[in-house]
């Protein structure tokens, strides 16, 4: 921006590097000084404020689509509001929050979110670790396998869930057909509590394992080869190498995936919504796989209770913050211990 040469470098006397300014060393006139001052002020402003202008699109969008909805949701959660008339607000104070305490459906959804989160996240990360370890060996067509890992992640939730719904069908599903072939009684995957949660988790596991595998693989490839060589010289087996070299080096990566997966698990929505036999958001006939995300959606968009839904959203937000703090504390402990 400021690249005008006549004012950039001071004019030098004879023998200096820069050419003398035209007109010799005559002192600048009053007008000239004012002009220069003005220009220098403008450049200072430019340097100081332009970066803000350049980042402003993000903040404008953030305010419009992030901050405003957050505040508006908070405001709506203190009122009785229906989606049919969003401008008719009746002030009820914290009633929408206090009633969450004895709302069986909310706590049922919270419990389901937790259990589905555990039975999807734990196997998913363990499998991802194992797969990454295998992919880290020299393999023929390894690029193919690595890309294939991402295929489930690239499929849409809707398509994947619909296929899983067919697989898990009670009367005509392929899984029950296979169980029947080995003499196990058919399982009602949609209507019994644990089978339905396992089925929903399996969709999540299927989608996210490859994604985590690639993250682990990238981290594994950054581990220096000499560590393995010296471990091998010390007589460590493959398994010992994995336990004592790979795992410790992966610790920050594991923490990262755990945090990301926890956040993802607390927001599970699409899979149970599409797995629902009722095509609604009730999460099964007895709400046996209704997650918090589904409950929020049901209250807001099916039942049109905007105020209640907003209170649920804020409660979820607070729960997420608590989870975040717990994660932070644990990760600090772990870092300190290493």
């Amino acid at each position, binding site marked *: 921006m400021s690249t005008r040469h006549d004012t950039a470098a001071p004019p030098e006397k004879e023998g200096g590097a820069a050419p003398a300014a035209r007109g010799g060393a005559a002192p600048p006139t009053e007008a000239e000084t004012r002009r220069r001052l003005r220009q220098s002020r403008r450049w200072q402003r430019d340097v100081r404020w332009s970066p803000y202008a350049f*980042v402003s*699109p*993000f903040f404008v*969008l953030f305010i419009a689509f992030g901050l405003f909805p957050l505040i508006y949701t908070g405001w709506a959660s203190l009122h*009785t509001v*229906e*989606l*049919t*008339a*969003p*401008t008719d607000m009746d002030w009820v104070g914290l009633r929408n929050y206090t009633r969450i305490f004895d*709302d*069986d*459906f909310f706590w049922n959804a919270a419990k389901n979110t937790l259990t589905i989160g555990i039975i999807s996240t734990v196997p998913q990360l363990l499998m991802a670790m194992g797969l990454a370890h295998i992919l880290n060996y020299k393999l023929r067509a390894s690029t193919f396998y690595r890309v294939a890992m991402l295929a489930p992640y690239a499929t849409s939730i809707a398509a994947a869930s619909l296929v899983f*719904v*067919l697989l898990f*069908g*009670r*009367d*005509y*599903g392929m899984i029950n057909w296979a169980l029947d072939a080995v003499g196990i009684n058919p399982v*009602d995957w949609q*209507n019994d509590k644990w089978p339905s949660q396992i089925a929903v988790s399996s969709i999540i596991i299927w989608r996210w394992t490859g994604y985590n595998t690639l993250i682990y693989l990238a981290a594994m490839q950054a581990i220096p080869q000499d560590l393995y060589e010296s471990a091998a010289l010390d007589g460590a087996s493959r398994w010992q190498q994995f336990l004592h070299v790979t795992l410790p080096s992966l610790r920050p990566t594991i923490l990262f995936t755990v945090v990301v997966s926890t956040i993802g698990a607390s927001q599970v929505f699409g899979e149970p919504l599409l797995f629902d*036999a*009722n*095509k*609604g958001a*009730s999460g099964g*006939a*007895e*709400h046996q796989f209704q997650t918090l995300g589904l409950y929020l959606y*049901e*209250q807001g*968009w*099916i*039942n*049109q*209770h905007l*105020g*209640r839904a907003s209170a649920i959203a804020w409660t979820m937000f607070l729960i997420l913050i608590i989870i975040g703090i717990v994660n932070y504390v644990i990760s600090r402990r772990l870092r300190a211990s290493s």
Partner: protein
Amino acid sequence: MRARTRTARQAVVLAAVASLGAGLLAGCADDGNSASPSESGGGGGKTTITLGLFGTMGFKEAGLYTEYEKLNPKIKIAENVIERNENYYPALLNHLTTNSGLQDIQAVEVGNIAEIVSTQADKLEDLSKAPGVDKSAFLDWKWAQATTADDKTIALGTDVGPMAICYRKDMFEAAGLPSDRDAVGKLWAGDWNKFVSVGQQYKAKAPKGTTFMDSPGGLLNAILSSEKEKFYDSSGEIIYKTNPAIKAGFDLTAKAAKDGLVGAQTQFQASWDTTIANSKFAAMACPPWMLGYIKGKSKPESAGKWDVAVAPKSGNWGGSFLAVPKSAKHAKEAQALAAWLTAPAQQAKLFAVQGSFPSAQAAYTSPEVTGAKNDMTGSAPIGEIFAEAAKSSPVQVIGPKDQIIQQGLTDNGVILVTKGKSAKEAWETATKTIDNNLEK
């Protein structure tokens, strides 16, 4: 760590820039559309009327748009279809409450009409005085459903779903029951209890692996659809828990489910479709549009094996309305089009092509209706049977939250009996769910 945050920030900036760009583009495109509907149509000085519809309503398929454009050379018609009403209706509500983004004509499903009438009437045109509208052509109850307390009719009826019982002649015969439609209708005339006891007779000698009816939800829906008052009384109070007819219908369905007379399916699910294809049940409640559904899901060999008998009590299942928002760009032309599309002659044509049964009773004498046949039911005079059911349907009190209550009773209620719960437990789960959903 640092590298990660930097790329994250870059990604955010990129996303921001991209969405900004997309917004600008969208803005331009929108501008081009709204500024000159008359020019964008490509024909000199034509007015484009837009319709917002859900599912396949069949106006286009029946050639009605082309016909109207021929009659009115200055009009062009464009439709904007969203596949499922679950996705269409929340968007429609949003658009109505913010008074923006509305099409010139908006369709409304019967399950939502009460809510629209009671909460959005001031946003919609009163169509009772629109040119070409003849109140007497419509079924009284259909007209009443879209009319407000202060006598404004904010939507015109398209189709209705007069309910009869579709049954499999071959399976009835195999179970030792009569198969002639008059004799079958007499078996259960006037009482749903008789219908269930016919189910007991069927079960005694049923072909292996089949049930009498398709699903608990189907049976409960049929019983409830034939009640004059179900979830709301005429003053608008919610009475679903105290209305003896509801509890009786629920218990009757639960009993049928416990005795194994109905399949354990949820309607319109993939596995329910499979039970149709595999001929796993002998009877189901069916409005005319259901025949099209059966045809779509059946294997070819079941063609002609179905027949239609009168239901124990007449009822209505399904149907839609057309409304014109006051903020529509061409509200006046739209009213004329809505009136024309719902006139008896057009409804009869729609029935011939699409199987949507007319809500204009004046169409019931037209050859399209009296001569109607369906592949699945062979020579059965379905037009006459359904017309009779439509005329004898009760003027049902429908309320704003009917859908939520019915879904609770079905999907969180009677379905549980097929999973081994008692009728009492099922009722408790259902009412608890419904009360939680209704509470503001």
